[in-house]
């Protein structure tokens, strides 16, 4: 980390720890705007920080670590796409858009708008590798809650102002979720390690049992893999092409969610299953994020298709050419 990144890390650690997993948009967004955090990835020409994907990794990972309930990650991604096209206010991202664009307007449906209530605009995946930026109407249409209690809306739009851009917001969403998963797994690992060092059964701490030690060691390996994958995906995005790396990172992070959440709950016993204890804000989000922006089979199929098509003789040269 350079000096600026250390500052960014310290600043977001403090803010996200304070806002926590139960904050509201009304409470959190003014605090975020005070620091202009939503403009992290906006180019300096448009008044932003001009941050790198490594910088974004720090913020996204820290947000995951604190199970941040505010839609900051989505706001950062939306602003990075929308600001230069004149979209202002709090933006967000969505799962999919279906409809037609004519003369700078969109008519159709946007699905899975994340924290859409009160948002000004949304960036949604449109055609393959393309995104649509659309102004959101005041009234959201149908709202639902994710398993971690966050809203997702389906919004029907008639003649909304829209711009189609050659940016893969689906891939960027996948990167963001990978980074958040990496952070949340580290946090769940930390509270699990603390818990087994305190809780005693049979006259000794749970940490003294070899079976518990080996379970948490497995968890640590999965958390390490998720963190390294997210970091390498950020590096690839900064190099200018992260299509393979982002998919591989999301897939690896999805896999890590399975073992990580299962072990975290197992070593906590019944207390981890309660509403009052601080494990579920992490694990419920981890389970929700695993589905978003590509589940395991989506990315496995996509990567597998490409790797099979390139063939045996290209696999290793392709892999190494990306980093050389």
């Amino acid at each position, binding site marked *: 980390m350079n000096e600026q990144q250390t500052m960014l890390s310290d600043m977001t650690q403090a803010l996200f720890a304070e806002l926590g997993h139960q904050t509201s948009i009304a409470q959190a967004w003014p605090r975020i705007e005070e620091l202009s955090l939503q403009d992290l990835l906006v180019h300096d020409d448009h008044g932003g920080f001009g941050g790198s994907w*490594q910088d974004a990794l720090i913020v996204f990972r820290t947000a995951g670590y604190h199970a941040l309930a505010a839609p900051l990650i989505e706001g950062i991604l939306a602003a990075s796409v929308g600001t230069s096209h004149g979209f202002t206010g709090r933006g967000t991202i969505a799962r999919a858009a279906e409809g037609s664009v004519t003369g700078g307007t969109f008519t159709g449906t946007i699905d899975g708008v994340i924290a859409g209530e009160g948002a000004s605009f949304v960036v949604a995946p449109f055609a393959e590798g393309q995104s649509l930026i659309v102004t959101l109407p005041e009234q959201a249409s149908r709202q639902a809650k994710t398993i971690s209690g966050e809203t997702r809306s389906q919004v029907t739009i008639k003649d909304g102002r829209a711009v189609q851009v050659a940016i893969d917001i689906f891939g960027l969403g996948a990167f963001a979720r990978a980074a958040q998963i990496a952070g949340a797994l*580290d*946090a769940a*690992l*930390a509270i699990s*390690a603390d818990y*087994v*060092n305190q809780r005693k059964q049979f006259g000794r701490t749970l*940490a*003294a049992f*070899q079976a*518990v*030690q*080996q379970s*948490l*060691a*497995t968890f*640590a*390996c999965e*958390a*390490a*893999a998720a*963190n*390294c*994958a*997210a*970091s*390498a995906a950020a*590096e690839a995005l900064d190099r200018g092409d992260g299509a*393979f*790396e982002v*998919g*591989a*990172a999301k*897939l*690896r992070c999805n*896999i890590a969610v399975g073992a990580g959440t299962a072990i975290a709950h197992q070593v906590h016993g019944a207390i981890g299953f309660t509403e009052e204890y601080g494990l579920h804000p992490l694990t419920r989000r981890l389970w929700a994020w695993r589905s978003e922006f590509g589940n*395991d*089979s989506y*990315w*496995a*199929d*996509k*990567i*597998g*298709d490409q*790797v*099979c*098509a390139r*063939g*045996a003789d290209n*696999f*290793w040269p392709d*892999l*190494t*050419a990306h*980093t*050389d």
Partner: protein
Amino acid sequence: MQTFTAQPIPWPDSAAALRQKVRDLIASYPINPDPAKRANCWAVADPAFSKLLGDAGLIGMTWSREYGGHERSSLERYVVLEELLASGAPVGAHWIADRQTGGMLLNYGQEEEKRRWVPGMARGEVFACIGLSEPNSGSDLASVKTTAQKKGDRWVIDGQKVWTTGAHFSHVMIALVRTTPGSQRNEGLSQFVIPMDAPGVTIRPIIDLTGGHDFNEVFFDSVELEEHALVGTEGNGWRQVTAELSLERSGPERYLSSTALFLELLRHVGPTTDSNVRQLVGKLAAEMWTLRMMSATVAAKLASGEDPALEATIVKDLGNSFEQAMPALVQAAVDLDLAGEAPLARVLGHLLQVSPSFSLRGGTREILKGIIARGLGLR
């Protein structure tokens, strides 16, 4: 908590050129017609290939020129290693000398021993083996019983090592033995350089379950060594061995042993419409990419002078689990006649049998997880 601090990897500028050099060299070498020989290739010894690599300046890359090395960076060496392993090159003869013995001698060895062994290692002509395990000292390494006794100006070695990979073609061993009679556990241990042709050294083969011969028993019956055979400080053996094991555990060979199987799988299925196979390929590719980044991160940390012992252990455990799981996953996804001649069947048949060793060699899974648990503050 962050057990594995990820960081951008400073790949050397020379990486692409080095890869091309290795690829050209491998392309010029007659390929072994048996595809099974490309799997787990760092256990496949071919002295002629080692000599070719030595002549090309690709062994002892980081060692001092004074001792035949090439003073390249450790990340340049890492690039060469991953190329060799990914292509399935038969690097087993010189692997241990290049990975740990040469460096151990340069760090801790006495001048006579450095001059005697290291230049030949760098040329790809002198091979080494590791004298750690004993019949009653496997994972419990601190219980070694082989002794070295000082008699006049000589050290006299008595005892036995076992599971010694490549002892039958090696020229030299660095062995961990007890120099303080009656000392307990990891106290009173020292390391010695033992020429494999010294009087009193006897080597007996141990044939593995495939009928292959990698392992040996090595007996020492009053083997006399000169004073300078002592490596490092008397009684400091445990600390030296722990550092050596870090090197032994941290390399890319800990996840690439089954690469030949993955490549044969791609060759076998081609561009496929079978979604099971596609998903398996996608998952394995994502895992391999992640492990490559983790392994290179450890290499970068080592290169910058950090001691990433915990990170290296994590990568070895994940890598071993990955390369060990792959054969069964491929077997489940692709219908194959294991008695047939299809290259994929040959590689798969071989790896199904040898892959149990992947989570044993260089520290068992249970030992590694214990080290990781200590890193988490659990013991």
